[in-house]
């Protein structure tokens, strides 16, 4: 018996719960040689801003124990080039593309949301709130519930599409953040973005990354991500998308037990470009072996 694999995130129906995470899968096209894009649930494109952004100087990446730090600095082509150069490919693939985006003021966020709302090839929006608020002296939107809510509300007013809010893990209380975003109109929550970390080159007595600090991703962060997904999923009604160190079908299924309705695969795609597809197939095989009829039955099915 073939298990039912589809799940819903807001009004978005996914053929299976496996997406790729923003910033780790380009605009989809880069991986099309290694992954059958039509075997995964959705893919999330690199974070977009209104204007193209240069990003940080190099080095931007360094491996750490069981993980990696990145300080790409949100280099991206900007919304105009995205529409011109990247959207045509999205049209050619029969898999929802979710546009990840960010701004430095709530207005910028809203403008991007409304421009993305107008693109039929964009199936849903994922707001990255892990950016400093230039208006409020650089406080990161994603670490203050009011700040986050203002961004989410502004985006909500600008789009009818499924609005996913991606939470930062660099907070004392992720539940408070999640509830603020839910109340402000989020249709779903992505949990988690990277944890802020640092690496040092001892011989040169310098930070390895030109940006000094960077975002930690990969298997190292999985236990933290799993805990946060579990906390958030218990506290909100909207679906949660589990992210953080997912390398295998087992990892992905654990996130679903913790309460995730879907998952995103990030760093794993660098290690194995076919990871997302293999994870989706592995999940299905796991369910089939155990005669689980519908993957939805696993969501939050952790026993106490």
């Amino acid at each position, binding site marked *: 018996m073939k298990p039912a694999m589809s799940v819903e995130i807001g009004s978005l129906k996914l053929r299976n719960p496996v997406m790729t995470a923003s910033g*780790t899968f380009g605009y989809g096209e880069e991986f099309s040689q290694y992954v059958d894009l039509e075997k995964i649930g959705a893919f999330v494109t690199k974070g977009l801003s209104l204007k193209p952004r240069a990003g940080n100087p*190099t080095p931007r*990446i360094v491996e750490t124990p*069981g993980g990696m730090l990145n300080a790409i600095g949100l*280099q991206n082509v900007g919304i105009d080039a995205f529409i011109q150069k990247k959207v045509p490919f999205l049209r050619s693939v029969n898999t929802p593309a979710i546009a990840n985006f960010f701004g430095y003021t709530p207005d910028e966020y809203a403008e991007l949301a409304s421009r993305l709302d107008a693109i039929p090839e964009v199936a849903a929006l994922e707001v990255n709130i892990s950016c400093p608020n230039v208006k409020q002296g650089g406080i990161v939107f994603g670490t203050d519930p009011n700040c986050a809510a203002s961004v989410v509300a502004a985006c909500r007013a600008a789009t009818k599409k499924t609005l996913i809010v991606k939470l930062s893990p660099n907070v004392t209380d992720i539940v408070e953040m999640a509830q603020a975003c839910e109340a402000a109109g989020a249709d779903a929550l992505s949990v988690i973005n990277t944890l802020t970390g640092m690496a040092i080159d001892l011989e040169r007595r310098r930070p390895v990354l030109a940006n000094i600090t960077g975002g930690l991703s990969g298997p190292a962060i999985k236990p933290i991500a799993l805990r946060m997904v579990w906390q958030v999923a218990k506290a909100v009604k909207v679906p949660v998308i589990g992210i953080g160190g997912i390398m295998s079908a087992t990892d992905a299924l654990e996130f679903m037990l913790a309460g995730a309705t879907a998952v995103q695969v990030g760093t794993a795609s660098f290690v194995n470009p*076919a990871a997302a597809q293999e994870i989706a197939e592995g999940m299905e095989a796991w369910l089939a072996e155990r005669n689980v009829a519908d993957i939805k039955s696993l969501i939050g099915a952790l026993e106490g």
Partner: protein
Amino acid sequence: MQFKAMILDNAEVSPGYWRMRMTAPAEMLEAKPGQFVMVRVNPSIDPLIRRPFGVFDVGTLQPAFTGAAPQPYLEILYRVVGKGTGMLSTLHANDILDILGPLGTGFENGPAGEEKLIVGGGVGLAPLYLLAKELVKDSPVRLFAGGRTKDDVLCITEFERLGVECYTATEDGSLGECGLVTKVLEQRLDATGNKGQIFACGPHGMLKAVAGIGAKRSVKTQVSLEGYMACGMGACLGCVCQGTEHSAENPDYRCVCTEGPVFEAAELKWEGN
């Protein structure tokens, strides 16, 4: 292309430098000189990220006297500098690696007959052997190989066997000229009146010097860069370098993994990178 390779041979060719031969699909034979592969050292999470290595050589084993089918192979030449390369050096024949490649944009050969000046520093020679193999087909090729000591000057015999004229230089004078290999390169350019074109791979300082020589003498120069890579396919934006026109307002970042690793030296900004 992603494939599993079985190691056929893994041997230390000079102290700290290893040459590994492994099985490959026939498509690997189409690899262009200057392209590279991303190697997953083992299935564990330590190391996590793949390691990039130039394609040193490709070919086909013709098993003699047996009925076995011809076996295409891939070779890399690597220097043990850290964890990943250290672990690679402990692997044995019959061990299995996971490989992505060939990746990136390789060298352009340039017109037949023209003199080809290949400049390699240390393990920078790795992608230049396949290049030399190509170039000798229709051009006179000279190799300028440099290193700190004679142990850092690799595989000269192999280049000579191709018919390449080899010049060496070491910083400590233990092999060839004493000093930098760029000096020997300049002597040749002086002698020929800046004829031909340059292909270089090696440490950043050497590439910068070579780019300067090429620019000053108006000799076309291609360089193969390194960059800290996570994906190797243009997705992570970790590996970028700066094009000539780069500035904070007008970003001109190039992906080393897809637009490179080989660039025309004149396209790049040499201070920033």
